[in-house]
């Protein structure tokens, strides 16, 4: 944490190498969020890069009492919500496109396990695709980052009750999608 603080302070002084350390430290959580939100590897990469560019630009506004990673996730989720709203239609997910590497600790899975994993990934993308942008962000922050309702509300600049409501509606929509499949 002290190292993180030092990098932030150095980056504030214009040290891009220090900012590079921050990028390396948090590229996975940020990319995962953009990927889960946008459902497309190429767009997720671009959105994750954009998140770090915005973070660098707005670094002076970061408040140290807040977790740095949550601040980055906040920038990423707002950016992805904007992108999804701009699409003006349901996101076109390239299910046949290359999937990003997953960060697992296990050894290479057997072929039958690979098939199962791929099905599972596609299922995840399909159910997330059914959700409006702000519901999707709440689900991703809850499941992949284990944030509390309060933390999600802070990240998304809304209230806990709004998050509670979004999560329950999102879960209902995803359940209905699963039942319909």
């Amino acid at each position: 944490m002290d190292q993180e603080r030092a990098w932030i302070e150095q980056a504030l002084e214009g040290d891009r190498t220090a900012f590079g350390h921050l990028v390396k430290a948090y590229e996975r959580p940020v990319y995962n969020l953009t990927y889960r939100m946008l459902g497309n590897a190429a767009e997720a990469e671009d959105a994750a890069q954009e998140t770090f560019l915005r973070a660098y630009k707005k670094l002076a506004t970061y408040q140290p009492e807040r977790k740095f990673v949550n601040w980055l996730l906040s920038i990423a989720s707002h950016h992805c919500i904007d992108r999804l709203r701009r699409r003006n239609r349901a996101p076109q997910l390239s299910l046949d496109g290359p999937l990003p590497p997953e960060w697992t600790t296990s050894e290479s899975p057997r072929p039958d396990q690979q098939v199962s994993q791929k099905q599972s990934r596609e299922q995840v993308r399909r159910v997330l695709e059914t959700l409006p942008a702000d519901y999707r962000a709440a689900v991703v922050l809850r499941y992949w980052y284990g944030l509390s309702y309060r933390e999600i509300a802070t990240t998304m600049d809304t209230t806990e009750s709004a998050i509670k409501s979004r999560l329950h509606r999102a879960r209902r929509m995803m359940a209905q999608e699963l039942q319909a499949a």
Partner: protein
Amino acid sequence: MDRVVECEHGEEMTALMSLALDHLLEEAERQALDRHLAACAFCRSEWVAMQQVSVVLEASPLVGPPLGFAVRVERRLEEQAKKQRQVFGGLALFTSSLSLAGMTVAAALMLVMGIVAWRWLDASPAVQQGTQAVSKVASGMGLVGKGASLFLGDLLLRYGAPLVVILGVGLVVLVGVWAWLFLKRPGNTRHNGFA
């Protein structure tokens, strides 16, 4: 899957199910949900599906970006800084031209004011008497001044006040732009080189 008749308490029960999945249900709410699920096939089916979705999402790992992500971000930061330097360079050139024009206008204004002041002094009989001793020298310059004052003097008398205000505002804006450029110039690390 066959769907049974939709439950009239569906919304309320789904909210409880969602809280149950996050382990946030109080005991009384938990019992109420259990009682309802035992009696309602629609909500039972939804509860099973919600649990399935939850299991799938919880089992889904973090995905990371392709190799070299940090390098690509660094490259974009560099490109952005380069663009910004170009923009600042252009702005500096533009504003320096503007300030030059501003200074020219200010000089012209001072000249006009001088001429008007001279004209007023020239028209006053008391001043005329007192200045007769130097009038020979001054009259040479006065001829030029008088010609210019016919046009500029009247212009200033008619529109003098708004003109002075406009010039004043223009100069203040120029000073402001220069100050802003100075503070936000690339390399001024207090602002990270970004606006």
